[in-house]
């Protein structure tokens, strides 16, 4: 096969899975990250403790180990799932733990005077969070969230190791059938780069747009 045919073949088979895994896992990570990050700031010690365990376990062990554990060990306890579900769950849980730290430190770095202003204007705690703190914290978090999205996208290549047919998996299959090793893995690197690079640029642009004139 020619170089372009190889690329076309990989894209045709694996691109959708790679992108779908990225999007689903990113949404899960963002939701988990916000929920866990806010819970970590709770007044309730027990809630803080529970979240700390989640965060430390998923940050302290390796993503690939988590992926294998969810895919190979959970079925032993009667919990079976498709490779896709396992992939989204593992990546989402893993990045959710990191995101929660981003969320927590983002919220904590909002100027304390903002809290005083909302007390003086008689906001409730929920109103304060929703209207004043989170919108400002989000802008502070954006660069970190952007970096995490790129890292998450790159990490989806691991799902090939639990037989999910993403770009990397397809490359391995092609490699086994055509033996055009050099072209295949070069093409694979280029494909990832061509997706990740605009993502990096896009996040930077979004960042600039959101801070324009305001901060």
């Amino acid at each position, binding site marked *: 096969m020619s170089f372009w045919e190889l690329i076309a073949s990989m894209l045709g088979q694996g691109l959708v899975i790679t992108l779908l895994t990225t999007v689903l896992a990113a949404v899960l990570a963002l939701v988990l990250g916000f929920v866990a990050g806010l819970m970590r700031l709770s007044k309730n010690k027990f809630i803080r403790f529970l979240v700390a365990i989640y965060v430390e376990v998923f940050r302290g062990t390796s993503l690939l180990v988590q992926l294998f554990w969810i895919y190979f060990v959970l079925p032993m306890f009667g919990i079976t799932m498709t490779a896709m579900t396992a992939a989204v769950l593992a990546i989402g849980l893993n990045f959710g733990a990191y995101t929660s730290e981003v969320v927590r430190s983002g919220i904590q770095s909002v*100027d304390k*005077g*903002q809290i*005083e*202003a909302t*007390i*003086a*204007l*008689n*906001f*409730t705690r929920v*109103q304060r969070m929703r*209207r*004043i703190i989170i*919108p*400002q914290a989000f*802008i502070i978090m954006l660069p970190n969230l952007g970096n995490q999205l790129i890292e998450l996208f790159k990490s989806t290549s691991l799902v090939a190791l639990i037989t999910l047919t993403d770009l990397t998996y397809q490359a391995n299959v092609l490699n086994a059938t055509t033996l055009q090793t050099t072209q295949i893995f070069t093409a694979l690197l280029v494909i990832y780069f061509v997706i990740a690079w605009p993502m990096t640029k896009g996040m930077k642009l979004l960042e600039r747009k959101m801070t324009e*004139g*305001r*901060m």
Partner: protein
Amino acid sequence: MSEPIVKYNNVTKYFDDLMVLDGIDFEIQPGEKVALVGPSGSGKTTFARLLMTLEEITDGTIEVAGDYLWHEKDENGDLKPASTDHLRKVRSNIGMVFQHFHLFPHMTVLENIIEAPVTVKGVDKKEAIKDGKEMLDKVGLLDKADNYPAQLSGGQKQRVAIARALVMKPKVLIFDEPTSALDPELIGEVLDVIKDIAEEGETSMLLITHEMDFAREVADRIAFFDAGKIVEDGPPSEILYHPKSPRLKEFLERFMSTQASPE
């Protein structure tokens, strides 16, 4: 005289082991303008921050418009710590303007002003915009309505902060050193706005300030704080020109020597 709008009863405040307010009794009448002066660390800022509920009271009670601020009565009529709802209800009488403005940086000037009426009070947005623009006009910043705070000068920021506090129609408005963070040439515009509000007369004011001329002009009464106590309290003419206590005399002398009056 009518019922006081604010009444401090034997209010004490500790930060850990450090006593900053020592059993203070104090009253503010409706519409009264009170200036708080004194050396830094004398307790005047803490005194005001307790009223805004930015610091927790250690002992004693504060009454606002006839209700306890930090307490409420249980079924036996005894005082217990106030619930969040009770605290918010009583707190709605108080507003504050901060030294460092604390505008919401992610909102335009107009959004800053309508945010609390709409979110906290549930005022209809159209009406809030109308009121907000009127208030902006009053502080002379209607043309800045769509700017973000970062695009304003310090004096303009503080005028927006004043407008933001005023649209909530507080019965008592606290000014915590409103011009201390400003460049000298911007102080005048802010003081003028405060004077205008003072002349309207309805709102009681608690002014923490180092501007003695301004205090004399605006305040009905000046309270001098020293070491957690109100040492002297009276009309400006007495406090500034006929001080009784040696501490106040010393304070005024030092003050006059470092800050020659322009008049």
